[in-house]
């Protein structure tokens, strides 16, 4: 069986120059600036790019905006993990000769809402509109954590353990000058912050920011010809469960996380013990807990205690969400790109809160509300 294991590499990676509150840039330009930064990071020009992948904007629009004549387009838009899928698809495209250099872009004016379209406006007749919208949701915070109480009842997760997720990630953000929030917080601070949707408090919900990021993916055969240390794509996976969170098979676990990550670990031919660094998309504080379990780092119900015991914090044995995550670093809306960027930095050895000796990093993304998932495993060692 043909595998893309190790056969492509990320040779360009960058975020928007500014991050957080950028009221003077529209969404399309956040994509484009990231793209220019990533192309420059790779030492390339737009003439060298022949594949474009993005979510939020049409790849047709981005290719035109950036003066690229593409031979490969990927507009896969499955929420915040779309970029994990873009990297995965790019690997397949490059390995099979469909194109040579794929640019993956993200940009979102999540906070300032500059140059952004309205919400879908499908009216009341979709299945979600008929069977979820009538019950008073007000965006992701009022829906995504709906399974948390079930999880608490099943496994005994405490409010303090949930709060600790946010506390630990703030410890990482402390060392990251680009993080939106860097001041240390305590479990009490979290539990005393405003209730958004019980059991979730404000500090257990992600930020809403402006920003973008982009990647350049090429064949590993030429990966050493670029200015940056190559970051090889060792394994990838993707999956989906349901667009309606009320229809999850089991509210205490993410099937999409499990299927996607199993595929990625199989492809990478590594075990969980081989992982030096981990990013789990944290739209809300329960996601790292669900993620640790779905990815097989701990057993069911063990995610909360694992974080509480300090295993994922600075100095812990499994450093996780080392940029501060969606809870403290940034969250434009589709945060998966920033998880990938941090994995690339850690593998290159250039992260603000660098973990010593990272050889293998896993980035786990979520799309929608446990609707979709994408996994990318990166390494700095040639396969």
């Amino acid at each position: 069986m043909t595998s893309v294991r190790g056969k492509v590499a990320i040779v360009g990676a960058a975020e928007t120059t500014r991050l957080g509150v950028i009221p003077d840039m529209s969404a399309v330009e956040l994509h484009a600036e990231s793209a220019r930064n990533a192309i420059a990071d790779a030492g390339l020009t737009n003439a060298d790019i022949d594949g474009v992948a993005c979510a939020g904007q049409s790849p047709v629009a981005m290719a035109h905006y950036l003066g690229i004549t593409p031979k490969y387009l990927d507009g896969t838009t499955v929420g915040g993990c779309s970029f994990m899928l873009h990297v995965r698809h790019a690997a397949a495209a490059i390995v099979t000769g469909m194109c040579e250099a794929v640019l993956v872009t993200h940009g979102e004016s999540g906070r300032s809402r500059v140059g952004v379209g309205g919400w879908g406006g499908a009216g009341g007749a979709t299945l979600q509109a008929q069977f979820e919208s009538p019950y008073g949701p007000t965006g992701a915070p009022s829906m995504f954590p709906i399974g948390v109480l079930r999880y608490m009842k099943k496994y005994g997760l405490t409010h303090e353990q949930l709060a600790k997720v946010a506390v630990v990630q703030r410890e990482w953000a402390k060392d990251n000058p680009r993080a939106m929030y860097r001041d240390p917080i305590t479990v009490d601070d979290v539990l005393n912050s405003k209730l958004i949707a019980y059991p979730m408090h404000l500090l257990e919900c992600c930020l809403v920011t402006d920003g973008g990021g982009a990647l350049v993916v090429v064949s590993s055969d030429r990966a050493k010809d670029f200015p940056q240390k190559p970051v090889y794509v060792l394994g990838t996976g993707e999956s989906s469960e349901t667009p309606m969170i009320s229809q999850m098979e089991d509210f205490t676990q993410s099937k999409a996380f499990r299927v996607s990550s199993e595929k990625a670990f199989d492809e990478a031919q590594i075990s969980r013990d081989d992982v030096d660094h981990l990013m789990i998309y944290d739209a809300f504080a329960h996601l790292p807990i669900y993620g640790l379990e779905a990815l097989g780092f701990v057993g069911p119900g063990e995610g909360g205690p694992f974080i509480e015991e300090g295993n994922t914090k600075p100095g812990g044995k499994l450093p996780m969400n080392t940029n501060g995550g969606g809870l403290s670093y940034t969250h434009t809306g589709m945060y998966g790109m920033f998880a990938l960027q941090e994995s690339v930095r850690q593998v290159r050895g250039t992260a603000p809160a660098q973990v010593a000796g990272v050889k293998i990093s896993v980035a786990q993304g979520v799309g929608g509300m446990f609707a979709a998932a994408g996994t990318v495993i990166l390494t700095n060692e040639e396969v």
Partner: protein
Amino acid sequence: MSDVPRKFAPKPSPETQPFWDGCADGELRLQRCIPCNELYFPPHPACPRCLSDDVKWETLSGRGKLHTYLINHRAAPGFEPPYAIAVVELDEGPRMMSNIVGVEQTPEALVLDMDLEVTFEKRGEVMLPLFQPAGAQS
């Protein structure tokens, strides 16, 4: 049953119309697959398990249990926070999102796995299924 026009009103699609017709008659109706016996939600013409379109509408008991929920502290149009957005597990198996009425919207009053029964609220053109503690008067 009160008319609350400001809240979001669902619009039946051709595939779901019989479900909403059932609600208008004060009944929860879902489709059951004849070959594989799967009872499923949301409604659509073919069984999600085996893809057979040999399915028939069936009237359910209207009873269920509070499977999970959160308490929203921000107001959707027409809603007064805090209010619970819940997932109800029907006695027959499928789960659906709903609101729980006739009970305080607090973690103390809303106990997981408590027994519930369906009730209906007029919402636009349809009767929307909600749930209340079993045995309460609608």
